[in-house]
């Protein structure tokens, strides 16, 4: 039983890793620019599609193609911020979120365009080995292990960087009070773009670790279910980010554990709960929304700054 639990926990952990990377991107972007990034999935998707094209025609070796895909995602996010989001006054909440939907739809359409409208499922070559790793009795795919490690490494690097480095602190300053930061000589626009580049890069990374390895040892499958503006994992990612009120990164990480590991472990629970794991996740997200969790992580003044 312990081994089964460990087994499920590991699978859940891999899912948590993907969710964590998406959630961190969402939080970074929201904190720095006040944008609730519903385009996050679309931006990550474009990177994956570029990867699929490059490996499908064997233009580049998989690992290099993945790097290019990552760069494309990051660049897409940068363009979205520079050309579109920077022009929207933060006070216009509905416009902001509609525009985000538009940007996400745009990238989803571009993705389908790049695939030349291929219907059905596309086999995707993985860039990580498909071997199985044995960890003290539990079996896990190499790709899943790498996902966990990469997610952990990202957080291990990103959180201290944000806290201590000059750029990181500048990012936080812009997030807390844009005007004051600018008065202090910080180029708010530059740092807003930096947040988007990092966040979008993370989205690309998350989807690159997920989709090309979704079929286990054979690699991955890219299907219609992915080529949408709001992918299935986006909602749990927002759920995780909401644990921190879209503001706190450590809380978002805790949230990604809830929506990954904890949710998977519920398979072991008695029947009705196990079957309705997904619905339970939705209930949790609804509760988080009602709690207005942002109140716990930011002062009223900071929230005002984010809204206007």
């Amino acid at each position, binding site marked *: 039983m312990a081994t089964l639990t460990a087994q499920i926990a590991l699978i859940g952990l891999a899912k948590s890793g993907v969710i964590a990377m998406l959630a961190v991107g969402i939080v970074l972007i929201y904190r720095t620019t006040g944008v609730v990034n519903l385009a996050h999935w679309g931006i990550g998707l474009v990177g994956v599609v570029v990867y699929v094209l490059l490996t499908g025609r064997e233009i580049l070796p998989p690992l290099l193609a993945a790097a290019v895909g990552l760069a494309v995602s990051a660049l897409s996010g940068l363009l979205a911020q520079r050309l579109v989001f920077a022009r929207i006054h933060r006070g216009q*909440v509905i416009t902001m*979120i509609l525009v985000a939907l538009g940007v996400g739809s*745009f990238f989803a359409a*571009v993705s389908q*365009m790049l695939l030349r409208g291929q219907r059905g499922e596309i086999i995707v070559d993985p860039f990580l080995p498909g071997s199985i790793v044995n960890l003290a009795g539990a079996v896990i795919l190499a790709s899943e292990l790498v996902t966990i490690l990469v997610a952990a490494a990202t957080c291990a690097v990103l959180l201290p960087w944000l806290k201590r480095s000059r750029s990181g602190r500048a990012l936080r300053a812009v997030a807390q009070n844009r005007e004051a930061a600018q008065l202090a000589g910080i180029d708010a626009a530059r740092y807003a773009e930096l947040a988007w580049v990092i966040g979008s890069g993370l989205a690309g990374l998350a989807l690159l670790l997920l989709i090309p390895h979704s079929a286990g040892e054979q690699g991955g499958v890219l299907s219609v*279910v992915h080529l949408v503006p709001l992918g299935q994992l986006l909602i749990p990612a927002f759920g995780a980010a909401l644990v921190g009120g879209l503001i706190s990164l450590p809380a978002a990480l805790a949230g990604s554990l809830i929506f990954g590991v904890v949710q998977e472990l519920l398979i072991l629970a008695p029947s009705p709960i196990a079957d309705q794991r997904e619905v339970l996740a*939705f209930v949790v997200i*609804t509760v988080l929304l009602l709690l207005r969790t942002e109140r716990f992580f930011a002062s009223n003044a900071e929230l005002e700054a984010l809204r206007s």
Partner: protein
Amino acid sequence: MSTRILERPTATLPAKRTKPSGAATVGAVVLAAVAIGPLLLGDFASFVGARIAVTAIIGLSVIVVTGYTGQLSLMPYTFVGIGMFVAAHAITGWGWPFWFAAMLAAALSVPLSLLVGLVAVRLHGFYFAIATLTFASAVGATLFEWDAFTGGQTGMRVARPVIGPINFAGDEAYYLLCLVTVLLLVWMVIGLQHSRIGRAMTAVRENETAAATLGINVMKTKLVAFIVSGMIAAIGGVYHGMLLQSVTPTPYQTPYVEAVGVTLVILVVIGGMRSPWGPFIGAAIMYVQVEVFRTALFLQYIAAAMTAIAFIVVLLKLPDGLVGLIKHEAEVVRRAPLRGSIRVATIIAIKVVVTYAIWRLSQ
């Protein structure tokens, strides 16, 4: 200055009707063309016309909750799905007439919109949108996976109505039925706009605090908007079911239900988010575009990308969408009839030529 009048208003004659504006005349002409056009172009054009009309009905739900009240709901198609399958059961299963099934569908949408509404109206801006997204997923993962309701993967059949001697099974007849229905619903939504509750909705959208200090119950207004919107979408679902005649649950499951919800919002915004005519125009453009590019799938995705860009441009620059643009052009024509008409005719001609050219090239 007057003294007593503020205290006790006396009834007066209704205000005299002013001359109909240029936009109304243009609208009437377009409407006539729209009504007759597809009938002249054959069966398939009628099917497309019906599709546009049905989407316009569903789009009205977006107008009420988002256009008027400023709340972004991403779950209209959840209500469409509910309406559709309720119609499938009522019409095909129990032999009910379609209008009765429509009323049932609207009624059955209320428990869900009430549940979601009571949760969501407490939330602001993007949290409301995310809440509707979450509920759409939740319902997609439960109700639309329930075979007893959806008839499983094989789906269910929905018969088109027969009213007296008229059989609406044919596309042409069905198109006219849909057209009449959408016009009726547009009329009703316009009535809503010019009423106490409709004005409360727009007040809530523009300035919640001011609305509250004028006696408007903001939460109740948002809730009513959401419920009315759900009912309209459910009625749209009934017509959608009759249009397709064979319905499956897949489009109402995650993640497709959200994707099509986004598409709907996009076309309503492009058409004009604040006007009941917006969804009609947005749907017309979208489905004509789909048909023009039908054979060239690749072009379809380019069109989709351009639509997304158009959507963003409209959001940033043209808040009233194409309806606003048409009203503006109608004013231009009214003020300088000859010059204005030439200008408008030129713009339309260019668009028609470009579309035709693309169509020919894609053949």
